[in-house]
């Protein structure tokens, strides 16, 4: 029995299950916020899996996701800006919870892997993920206006 894998399974069953529901139903604002939060959730789950399987190379998946996930949310913020403007989705509490959760898990993983390059990489992924999540939330809350056009 492996505690890391149990944690990942619980996170996926609860969090990602809720995310599928949240992204498939409800107003557009809630859906984009859910998409943003799913990035953090899946990234943390992948890091837990990497530790659970004892495969430090899998951290690369988390690294890539921590970079591309927030960029993906920025795509929605940019190209759905028109639809989001009437009611910009703000989720400060959810963003704070995601950031705190990410920080807690990443620090626990870094401690478990011991000092060294692996721990530095984990902390880097965590920092990228939290920054990206916060910035993407800001972008969704009206950070990117729709572009005008010379006619």
């Amino acid at each position, binding site marked *: 029995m492996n505690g890391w894998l149990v944690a990942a399974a619980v996170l996926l069953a609860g969090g990602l299950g809720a995310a599928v529901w949240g*992204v*498939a139903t409800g107003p557009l604002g809630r859906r984009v916020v859910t998409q943003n939060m799913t990035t953090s959730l899946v990234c943390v789950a*992948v890091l837990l899996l990497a530790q659970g399987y004892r495969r430090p190379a*899998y951290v690369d998946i988390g690294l890539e996701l921590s970079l591309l996930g927030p960029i993906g949310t920025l795509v929605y913020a940019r190209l*759905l800006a028109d639809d989001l403007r009437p009611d910009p989705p703000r989720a400060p509490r959810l963003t704070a919870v995601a950031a705190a959760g990410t920080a807690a898990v990443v620090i626990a993983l870094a401690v478990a892997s011991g000092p060294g390059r692996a721990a530095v990489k984990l902390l880097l992924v965590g920092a990228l993920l939290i920054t990206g999540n916060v910035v993407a939330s800001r972008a969704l809350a009206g950070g990117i206006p729709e572009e005008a056009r010379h006619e």
Partner: protein
Amino acid sequence: MNDALVVICLLLVAASATAAVAVRDPERQALVLAVLGLSLAVLFTVFQAPDVALSQLAVGSVLTPLLVLLSVRKVRRGAGPKTRRGTGPDRGGRDRTRPDAGPQPPGGRGGRDGATG
């Protein structure tokens, strides 16, 4: 433990894939597609196929949504400003499910979604 993870991931992929088909509006579909991509990436990780997971993330997290949304934007713009504001007699305007799209019975959405598909 690994079997449980595999089952959870398969169920999540099945659920999000079904949702991606059931949602009819392309913009919202792109959002569900992103979550489907993430579920698939986790599934591949659980199957110990990190290369495939990386490919899935590379394509699914930015490239696919960008292509879908740019195409939607072009098509909507080509349809003219009338359709854009949702006032025209269009069947599948973008404002179908927007809360400010006008008086619309809450129950009518599903039916119209089905009709436009």
